[in-house]
C-alpha cells in the first residue's frame, strides 16, 4: 500500500490529451530524455533542449530540395571515391595502388571472410544504400507520392545509419599512411579527395538533416494531401 501511495505522489504531472495525434506535438530529447512541447520556429532555425542544449528539431521550408541536392552530390562523390585509387605508393621499385573495394576484396582473398564482409557492409554497401535511398525518399516527398514506401525507406535508413563508417575509414587511411612514411613514397589519389568531400557531406547531413525532421516533413506532406 505504501508503495502505491508513493507512486501517486510522483505522478502529479499527469496531462490530458484529445487523442493520440496530440502526441505529435511532444518531443523527447534523445540525450537526456526531457519532455518538450513542440512549437513552430522560424525558417532555418533550430530548437534546442532546455536541459542539455541538444538540437531537438529544425525547420527548413525547403528541406526536400536541400536534401535531394546534398544526397545526389554525395552519391556522385561516393562513386568517384570508389572507382579511382585512394593512394598510390612506390616502395622498393614497386608501384601499388588501392581503391576502397580492393581493401575488402583483398581480405576475402586472404580468407578473412568475416572482416571482409563487415568492411564491405560498413564501407560500401550501407553508405551506398543510405544515399541511394535518401535520393529516392526526397524524390517521393517532392512528388508527394508513396506514403507507405517512404515509411519503409525511413525505417530502413534508421537501421543502416549507425553502420556506416566512412569517416572512421578516412582517419584509418591517414593512420596507415603515417605508418608507411619512411618506407615508401606516397601519392594521394583523386578518390582520397572525393572521399574527404563525401565524408564532409555525410557529417553535414547527419548534423543538419535528422531523420526525425524527415519524419515530421513526411507526416506534414501526407496530412495536407488528405
Amino acid at each position: 500500500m505504501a508503495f502505491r501511495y508513493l507512486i501517486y505522489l510522483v505522478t502529479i504531472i499527469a496531462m490530458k490529451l484529445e487523442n493520440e495525434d496530440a502526441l505529435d506535438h511532444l518531443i523527447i530529447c534523445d540525450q537526456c530524455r526531457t519532455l518538450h512541447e513542440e512549437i513552430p520556429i522560424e525558417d532555418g532555425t533550430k530548437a534546442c533542449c532546455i536541459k542539455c542544449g541538444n538540437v531537438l528539431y529544425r525547420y527548413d521550408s525547403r528541406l526536400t530540395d536541400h536534401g535531394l541536392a546534398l544526397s545526389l552530390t554525395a552519391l556522385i562523390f561516393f562513386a568517384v571515391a570508389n572507382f579511382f585509387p585512394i593512394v598510390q605508393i612506390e616502395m622498393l621499385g614497386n608501384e601499388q595502388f588501392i581503391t576502397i573495394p580492393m581493401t575488402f576484396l583483398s581480405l576475402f582473398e586472404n580468407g578473412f571472410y568475416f572482416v571482409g564482409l563487415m568492411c564491405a557492409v560498413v564501407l560500401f554497401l550501407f553508405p551506398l544504400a543510405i544515399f541511394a535511398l535518401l535520393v529516392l525518399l526526397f524524390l517521393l516527398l517532392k512528388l508527394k507520392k508513396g506514403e507507405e514506401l517512404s515509411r519503409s525507406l525511413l525505417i530502413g535508413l534508421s537501421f543502416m545509419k549507425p553502420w556506416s563508417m566512412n569517416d572512421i575509414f578516412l582517419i584509418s587511411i591517414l593512420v596507415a599512411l603515417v605508418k608507411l612514411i619512411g618506407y615508401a613514397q606516397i601519392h594521394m589519389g583523386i578518390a582520397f579527395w572525393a572521399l574527404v568531400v563525401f565524408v564532409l557531406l555525410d557529417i553535414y547531413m547527419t548534423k543538419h538533416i535528422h531523420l526525425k525532421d524527415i519524419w515530421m516533413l513526411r507526416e506534414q506532406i501526407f496530412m495536407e494531401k488528405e
Partner: protein
Amino acid sequence: MDAERTDLYGERMIEVDEKDLIRCPVCEAVNIDRGRDNRCRRCGSPIYRYTHFKTEKSWAYLITAIIAYVPANLYPMLVTTQFGKTEESTIVGGIIVMWESGSYPIAAVIFFASILVPIMKFLILVYLLINVKYPMGKDKKINKHKLYYMTEVVGPWSMIDVFVVAILAALIHMHNVEIIAGTAATAFALSVFFTLLAAQAFDESLIKENH
C-alpha cells in the same frame, strides 16, 4: 499542457502521465506506454518492453564481445613478411613499437581506438546493465543517458585498427614485402560488432533518473 483546450472536450480526453510517454527507438515519435505490446503510432515498429527479459539480450551480446576481445589481444593483428622473414605483432605490441619509434600521435590514436574505447565501452555497459536492475544509491550525479549516448557515438571508432590492417594488407603485397591480416583482426572485428549490437539492444527507457 493546453489547459483551456482540454477542458472543452471533457470526457474524450486520454489522461497520460509523463512517465508513461516513451520514445520510439526507430523514428523518435512520442508514444504512450501500453505495457507489453507497444507499436509505434508513426512507423509501426514494435517498441519491445519485455517484463522479464529486459537486459538479457544486451548481456548476451556484451559477454560475447568481451570473450572475443581476449583472442583479439593475444593473437597477432598484423603479419609482416620481409625478405622471407616473418614478423607478427599484436595490438599492444604494435602500439609499443610505434611509441618507441617516435610516432606518438599514431600510438595514441591506436591506443585510444583499440584499447581505451572498447574497455570503456565494456565497463559503461556493464555498469548500466547492473544499475538498471540494482540501482545504487550514490550515483545520482552521473547522467546515465549521456553516458549511454557517449558509448553509442564513440563505439564505432574502435574499428580504426581493423581498417588500418585492411588498408595495409591491400596495399603491401610485393614479392619482397608482404603484409597480411592476423587472426586477431577477425576476433577484434567480432568484438566491435557485438559491442555495437549490445549497445543497440540496451533498452534506454530502463534508465531511471533518480533525482
